[in-house]
């Protein structure tokens, strides 16, 4: 088994059971996955694990780690993860969050920026976009949401291997689990916290990078301007001809920008 292949571990963490994927060695990078559950062990993660320890917690209630009843908001989940970081001695990690996971990362930064060496947000939810709306996960079948999440589904081999073809019953069940928990935590206000913009004032000194596809059809890129306002020194890198998944759609550029930013 290559060191950049991942293993799944399950631990007792902060009073609950948590599963996570891990690979590689070195300084930890905490990866917070999206609203549809963890998509799989991705090419960019495999590459990053060559030089860093990559940790991907599987969010409680999203189909693998059991649901935690006291967690009823993304803020609650952020606090839970902060406790886990303390227990597991991951404090000082770089964190990178994707979409819904980006919102979690932002909340964690707003609660306790000192737990991270750096913050990377990839097309994060959490702040209501000033133009456009965050796509409603519940208005149409998940296949349509997935198709809308990349600019050109046919041209991405990795996307096709993850989400192409007919959905199996297992995948259907998996998506139901994940979207049910996303609903439980973020139904209203939809996928955002009106206070987050203000709370991020606490994270003003945390080195922050945002990566966003210009053609993102899930979370409009207009939200980036508010994130930049909120975290005054945040850097924003836009990806042309790219949708909601720069890490899959333009992996090379994504990794380059990420590598420059990590501590």
């Amino acid at each position, binding site marked *: 088994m290559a060191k950049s292949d991942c293993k799944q571990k399950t631990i007792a963490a902060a009073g609950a059971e948590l599963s996570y994927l891990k690979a590689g060695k070195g300084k930890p990078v905490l990866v917070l996955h999206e609203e549809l559950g963890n998509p799989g062990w991705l090419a960019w993660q495999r590459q990053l694990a060559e030089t860093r320890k990559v940790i991907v917690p599987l969010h409680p209630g999203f189909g693998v780690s059991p649901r935690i009843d006291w967690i009823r908001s993304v803020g609650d989940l952020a606090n839970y993860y902060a406790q886990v970081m303390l227990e597991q001695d991951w404090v000082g990690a770089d964190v990178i969050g994707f979409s819904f996971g980006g919102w979690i990362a932002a909340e964690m930064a707003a609660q306790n920026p000192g737990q991270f060496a750096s913050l990377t947000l990839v097309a994060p939810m959490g702040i209501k976009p000033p133009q456009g709306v965050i796509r409603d996960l519940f208005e149409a079948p998940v*296949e349509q949401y997935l198709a809308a999440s990349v600019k050109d589904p046919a041209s991405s081999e990795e996307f096709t291997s993850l989400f192409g073809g007919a959905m*199996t019953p297992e995948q*259907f069940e998996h998506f*139901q689990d994940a979207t049910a928990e996303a*609903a439980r935590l973020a*139904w*209203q206000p939809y996928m955002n916290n009106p206070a987050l913009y203000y709370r991020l004032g606490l994270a003003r000194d945390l080195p922050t990078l945002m990566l966003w596809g210009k053609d993102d059809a899930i979370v409009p890129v207009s939200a980036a301007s508010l994130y930049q306002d909120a975290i005054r020194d945040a850097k924003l890198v836009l990806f042309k001809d790219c949708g909601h998944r720069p890490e899959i759609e333009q992996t090379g550029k994504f990794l380059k920008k990420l590598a420059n930013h990590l501590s």
Partner: protein
Amino acid sequence: MHIATFTERPYGPVPEEEVIRNASFFGVSNRFLDPVKAGALFNRYLDEKLYAEELGFDGVMLNEHHANPFTLGAVMDVEAAILARITRRVKISLMGNPLPVADPLRLAEELAIIDMISGGRLVTGWVRGAGCEQIANNINPTYNRERFDEAHDFILQAWTRDGPWRYEGKHYEYRHVNPWAKPIQKPFPQTWIPSLVSPETAVFAARNRYSYMALATFLPPTMEMWNLYADTAAEEGFQAGPECFGYLQKVVCADTEEEAHELGKNYVYGGGQPAFARPEWMFPAGYNSKAATKRLAYALSDPETNEAVVSGKQAGSGVDVTETRRYNNEVLYENLLRNGQIIAGTPDTVLPKIRHILERLRPGIFSIWHIEGGSTTQEQSMRSMKLLADHVLPQMREWARELDLPAPDEVRPGSRKLPPSGQRDPVCDPGARAA
């Protein structure tokens, strides 16, 4: 036996091609609603309910669906309140209030006021609400069952506790509960729980000694649920009887078979019940339990290829939704006639089919799901009701006496003792011959 009439009270003039293009009634834009026409329809439907009372039906039944031309009655308590005033004798049954979608204190007030104005003729019904009701009211589907349970408990308390008192629950909080609105019926109104094939609902109904109202489900799964109810009833210490069971069945009558089928075809306007709402709206994530989600994942997959065909089958109807989306109302109508979901004919052809249901299911409540949609005229509708009242209902009442099928008014649900052996008696008769 209690014999009621029920209709969906649709916005009939919704353009059929819009429903077909949308592949469902739910989601068709409300720009197609003409409030003047809708107002006239509401009044016609109320007149038909009055007519039902005049004809001798025991009850009039309403339901509620939001954001859907399939049912104009989005806030059925409004219609129920009007009926409370304009009718004198019939029971007004509400099948049902979607509890998770409501403000339970407000609902407690509304229902109590309806009961007071009617002189104690309200029959309440509690439902979870279909998935699309959650979406249409922005209610978190993941909390649907919790909200249902909490709202139910709260409403019963609001009706029976002396106020002012204070309530702080998980989903609802009222720090001053003192409604000057209490039902006349004590301890609270007669209650029937409408259901499809949810085991949890059958258990809930039995534990609370509510009657269980099967909504036009096929006979075998209906009997399964009734047996589950009866088993739970036995655990609770009572024998379930016909007073515990109600059945909703589509029935229309006309002077000739041809006219009856012309009328009956309006049930499948736009694709009918299977086109009510697309599956992704019926089952939003979080609405179903984990076990039900698993069943759904496999029920909706093609056993040959294991491919999930999410828009494939409407559970329980045996009718393929994709078939209806290819839009062949003739085929759909024939299917629904064949599988018994629609009974349409002259009284002579209708009666044996009803007898068959009465023999097998033994319900104490029978609700005739009548037609108003599509191109149904008021004349057709009222003629059908008259034929039913004159030629079908009297025979049904005779059969109810013969088969011993008391209504909840005659025998209170939950009041029958178990046999001395302790083993419960059967509640339905699967062996009865087909009509």
